[in-house]
């Protein structure tokens, strides 16, 4: 299978932009949730 290429994003279509937005949204929620948990705990 083909090799992974690194950190050279070139958005070629709307689908890719939409996917990045989706990934940022989910990842943001995840990190936000962890920060809130951390603040509550420590």
């Amino acid at each position: 299978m083909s090799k992974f290429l690194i950190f050279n994003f070139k958005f070629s279509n709307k689908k890719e932009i939409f996917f990045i937005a989706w990934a940022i949204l989910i990842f943001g929620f995840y990190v936000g949730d962890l920060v809130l948990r951390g603040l509550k705990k420590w």
Partner: protein
Amino acid sequence: MVELAIILGIFGNLVFGLGLWGKLFLIKPLTLLLAVVLGGLMVQKKMWLAVWGFWKKVKKDKIALGLLAFGGAQAGVNLIGALGPELGFDALWYHLTIPKIYLQFGQIFYLRGGLYYYSAMPKLTEMFYLASLAFSPAGTLAKLIHFSFGLLSAAALYYLAKRYLKLRGALIAAVMFYTTLIVGWESISAYVDLSRTFFEILALDLFLRWSEKRKPADLYESAIMLGLALSVKLLAFFSLPVFLILTFWKSHKIQLVLKYFIFTLIVPLPWLIWSTLKTGNPIYPIFSGILDQTHALVLNPLSWGKEFFSFFIHPQDPISPIFLIFLPLLIFGLVKMIKENKNSGLKKLSFYFGGVMLGLMVTPNTGGARFLLPYLPVWSLLTVIMVEQSTRFLKQVLLVLVILTAGVNLGYRALANWKFVPVIIGRQSRTDFLSRNLKFDFGDFYDVDGRLDQLINHDWVYVIGGHNWFYADFPFVHESFSSFVPGLGYILTQNAILPEKFQGAREIYANSQTKIRLYLINPFGQND
């Protein structure tokens, strides 16, 4: 790894047999024998050559090296937590306490009642803990055993992934799994989910090997691995129908399906027979009425979606966001693959994943992401495979997300485990650590000022109330599994009122922090 799993399975059953025979005083020689056998396994040249070959490949690839470094750092952070005292609720309730009670009595027996009902269930991992407690009564060795199962699971996943992916892809799948928070959290506690995960990955790996090479031994070994997973936790039973259907799909031979079924069930059979003899139910306490409504099977398909997304939306134990981010791609990729009817090996892997996820949805949702843990490896693997078959853009996104998530999770686990550092390096006493970190309002117990140790002096104690008695360093009988036996010197209560029949007992110690009271029984027997 299969050899290791089989040796561990034999050892666990020997400990069980020894316990039923009432000869647990032989546990140390038996464990030393295991250490010699495992030592023999470790000096095998083949294994070290494989490790050396792996390292030579990794050091040539900077990204692979970076991924390995993340995995190594996560293992280091987990090790810190594993070396500290146990705080996990279920570990202090039964995973460690039941083996400790068995050691105190020198035998394995059924603990009836509402507190230790888990004692009737298969307890393969607890047999390892029992052996470890003979050498390390504080439970550190038991924690290290569960930690090791986490590493073994990641290694088993890597070898499974190598069947479909190159070095970097296989490492991404392994790191994605191992740096997930639930794996980090489980690695520092003497639970059993990581040992089940290890046996389930091996069962799948051997099954896929059989489906490629058609060596019947691989299929039987796969069934034995699933049997070992069942001996760890009965929930592994949900994987069995999936393997049976796959066996029939691949071979069209009902005899092979039957053989798989028999080989799987024969492994936990001693436990199931014992449970039947003691409770009349091979899978007690399931269907016994002792468990509350939250333990009922979820048969309403409308609830499955809600349950599935509960793994991601403010879950009890968070799992990596990568699983959700790439879920649409995974579903789309699987549907496309089935439509195009290509790559039968991948199809079987996907069917396995779909089947076990369906089983998981039916399972009572009492364990949160812990119950998902045995299937996270295959989820990681399928995600990486689907991304590898897609565009360069998605490969880049996956790699970046794996690195970012590993970094965030590593930081979170490091902060969570930081509290163990002073007690590990000796700057904080174990007593001080446990006094500050145990939850005495939620049933934890610890002799915070050492007074119980002085007063009881290794005499037998009748215990009333409380919940998590692992740190009771005196031989005890709990009210839940035994009525009062004349001759016991003391009664200890936690968050409980002394029953009227013991009103003649004299209170000799009380602690408001731990909510315990110690009573001296009238030596002339007027209390009982």
